[in-house]
């Protein structure tokens, strides 16, 4: 490439005037010059006359090229110092340079060496050309030089490019990655620890942390697992129950689902269009009018939906604890919002698995609430019932609740984490139970009293009746066991949102058959429930004012339920939130103590250990 001789001559002819303002012409020259070094590098071997020859010049050209884009300090013969972005150098001739956005740091001109602060500021020159004969030195600090051209540019952040934390904070000095070697202990490692972490459930068999602590440090543990979870009564009928749970779990898992998330978990390819990106799959907000499966417009619509489905959907769900409420699996209708959809969606007895998923997904969204709702219900029932109890109660409840529209029978067993269920028969039951509970929640029933009777009573009391004529109605979406929520009962318009959708009984909905175990002793009792008494905060569901998807859940309720979040800054959320995502998070649930003052979501139900957790055992 040719140097522009013009450029060089310009500088020399103008003599002292070596600074120039922005001039397009100049810039163009500069541009060509810029690429020069690279070309020159290639051309060096040709030994072009006038260009750098041999490897001597190469290094200089290379280093000069590395400076492109770098902020440098240039010292001039007259003592002036400029700071600017290195743009180009005349490598073919005399190495005059061009800076962009240069500003004078020190004036070595006529006025002498004035320090900066005394300056009246001048805007930086867009382009500054410095002829070689004025150039004394160019200082580039922390210039990256390496045989790998990448590091030249990588150092600078590239906004708009996705940067992971590790890439941002890494230094190019650090290995990008390295070959991992398995660790080999060097001899003084206590034996017997190889399998310590293999099976977290192997308590008592492989590793007892409490024992170790006590022996090592004399720390006496007061840990009693049963505080945090419901004791599993592995009674006589355990085997039976286990098997049943397994069966239901299998059924549930094998079901068809229309929910994307559930399908994904189960490994079904739900959507033929594989070009759905992550955003639309997991976080996009679906348009309001898509009231099909996902009743919510919220994010995690699907999850919410699933949750709902789980809760209500499977016909089964209900069975477990929540009496009645579930029966109206499709309470949706009652809720003001697209709840209906939910219900319908849930029709296909989705299972708890979904719930879990969805619940977990829902974060701050309405879903959350719904899930919360669900979970709330759940815990109540869940906690109270242990697997065995569940089984028993189930039977008992079933009979008792036959009045429900739905025959939510099997629901109990299958729900919940199928995965969990797999673990233990009991747990299977529990998980099922959990899911059911979830659904229950939806229904809003679950007052936490395991007994169906009580339940019914509760529901009645709670919900202002409406919900289900017989327990069935409770299906209100998500409102968690109703207890706190004050029930969505649409039917009961008196204290409820007049704009809420009517509850439409879905004759096809499975009746909820709460298993007496529904409510473990939740202290919560009624004090804590946050009843809709505080109507104000709640927004009308239908409109989804908050945009929380939850709406559907509470058809009537809206009031509270919803989102505790916005109105009440209290934290209620987090703890309760936990239940939502049941399965996934074991940690959370344990040990939650009932919170008497919980507002929003029926605390009691939650308090109980998360049914999900129970299954974890």
């Amino acid at each position, binding site marked *: 490439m040719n140097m522009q001789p013009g450029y060089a001559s310009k500088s020399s002819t103008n*003599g002292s005037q070596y600074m120039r303002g922005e001039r397009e012409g100049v810039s163009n020259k500069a541009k060509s010059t810029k*690429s020069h070094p*690279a070309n020159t*590098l290639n051309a060096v071997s040709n030994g072009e006359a006038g260009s*750098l*020859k041999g*490897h*001597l*010049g190469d*290094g*200089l*050209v*290379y*280093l*000069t*090229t*590395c*400076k*492109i*884009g770098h902020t440098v300090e240039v*010292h*001039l*013969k007259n*003592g002036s110092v400029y700071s600017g*972005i*290195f*743009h180009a150098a005349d490598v073919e*001739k005399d*190495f005059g340079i061009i800076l*962009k*956005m240069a500003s004078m740091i020190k004036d070595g001109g006529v006025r002498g060496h004035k320090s900066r602060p005394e300056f*009246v*500021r*001048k*805007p*930086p020159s867009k382009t500054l050309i410095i*002829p*070689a*004969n004025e150039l*004394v*030195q*160019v*200082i*580039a600090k*922390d*210039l990256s*030089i*390496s*045989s*790998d*051209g*990448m*590091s*030249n*540019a*990588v*150092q*600078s952040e*590239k906004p708009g490019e996705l940067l992971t934390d590790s890439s941002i904070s890494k230094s*190019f000095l650090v290995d990008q990655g390295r070959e991992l070697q398995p660790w080999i202990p060097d001899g003084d490692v206590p034996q017997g620890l190889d399998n310590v972490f293999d099976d977290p459930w192997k308590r008592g068999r492989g590793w007892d942390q409490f024992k170790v602590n006590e022996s090592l440090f004399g720390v006496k543990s007061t840990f009693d697992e049963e505080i945090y979870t419901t004791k599993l009564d592995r009674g006589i009928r355990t085997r039976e129950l286990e098997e049943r749970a397994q069966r239901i779990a299998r059924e549930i898992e094998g079901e068809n689902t229309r929910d994307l998330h559930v399908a994904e978990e189960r490994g079904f390819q739900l959507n033929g269009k594989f070009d759905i990106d992550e955003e639309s799959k997991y976080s996009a907000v679906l348009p309001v009018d898509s009231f099909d499966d996902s009743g919510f417009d919220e994010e995690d619509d699907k999850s919410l939906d699933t949750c709902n489905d789980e809760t209500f959907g499977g016909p089964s769900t209900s069975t477990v604890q929540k009496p009645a409420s579930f029966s109206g699996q499709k309470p949706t209708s009652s809720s003001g919002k697209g709840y209906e959809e939910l219900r319908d969606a849930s029709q296909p007895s989705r299972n708890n698995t979904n719930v879990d998923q969805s619940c977990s997904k829902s974060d701050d969204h309405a879903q959350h609430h719904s899930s919360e709702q669900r979970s709330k219900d759940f815990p109540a029932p869940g906690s109270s019932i242990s697997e065995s109890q569940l089984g028993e109660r189930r039977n008992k409840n079933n009979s008792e609740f036959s009045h429900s529209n739905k025959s939510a029978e099997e629901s109990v067993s299958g729900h919940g984490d199928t995965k969990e269920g797999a673990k233990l028969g009991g747990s299977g039951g529990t998980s099922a139970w959990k899911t059911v509970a979830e659904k229950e929640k939806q229904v809003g029933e679950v007052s936490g009293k395991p007994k169906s009777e009580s339940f019914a009573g509760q529901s009645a009391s709670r919900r202002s009746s409406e919900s289900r004529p017989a327990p069935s109605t409770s299906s209100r979406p998500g409102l968690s066991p109703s207890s706190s929520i004050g029930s969505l009962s649409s039917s009961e318009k008196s204290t409820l949102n007049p704009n809420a959708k009517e509850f439409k009984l879905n004759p096809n909905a499975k009746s909820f058959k709460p298993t007496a175990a529904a409510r473990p002793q939740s202290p919560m009792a009624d004090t804590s429930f946050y009843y809709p008494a505080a109507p104000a905060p709640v927004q009308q569901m239908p409109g989804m004012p908050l945009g929380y998807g939850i709406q559907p859940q509470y058809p009537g309720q809206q009031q509270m339920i919803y989102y505790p979040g916005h109105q009440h800054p209290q934290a209620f959320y987090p703890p309760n939130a936990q239940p939502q995502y049941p399965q996934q998070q074991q940690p959370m649930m344990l040990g939650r103590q009932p919170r008497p003052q919980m507002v929003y979501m029926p605390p009691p139900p939650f308090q109980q250990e998360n049914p999900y957790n129970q299954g974890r055992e």
Partner: protein
Amino acid sequence: MDPAGATVANDIGGEKFPVGNIYSVKVITGDEFRGIVMAYDPIPNFVVFEEGSKPRDGHAKNTRMVNASFITGLSYLGKTEDPLLTDDCWVNLDGLRAKEALAIRQAEAEAERMGVGVTAEAQSIFDALSKTLPVQWENSDILVMKEVRVRSPYLSDCVFGGTDAANNRVKKVLELVRRRLQLVGT
């Protein structure tokens, strides 16, 4: 190309700078430093030094590209055998261009914040105001929130324009800023 003010160090001009040599260098402007020769080309007569007496680990080096014609003092300090540049160095031009574009963008943004022909005091007031209010320069006036104008000398009574609320707010902030900067004024 040697206009008047010829290079002082003519005697050094023709000297070769072998790569790896460590020198203590003095230039015509009076600046002094120590550096290791990284590259040298006799034709334009420029040397690139890595600052310091010992090569720095890693790939970031403080470099100085010096016009050898302006070197006034040179003393040989030693030699280092570390290969500073390998034979197959290559540059990522695109990356460099992107880096430059980014730097220019940033510099332009910075330049926006600098007032033209304003005193340092004015600039510091501007900087302090910009921490909490959206400010921009308009000649030598500070324009806050696009409505309120603060004229020189940037005292509380130099605040004009905007709604009453905005105006008062700017006044208040200005007062606090001045107080914090311990500037003289009302």
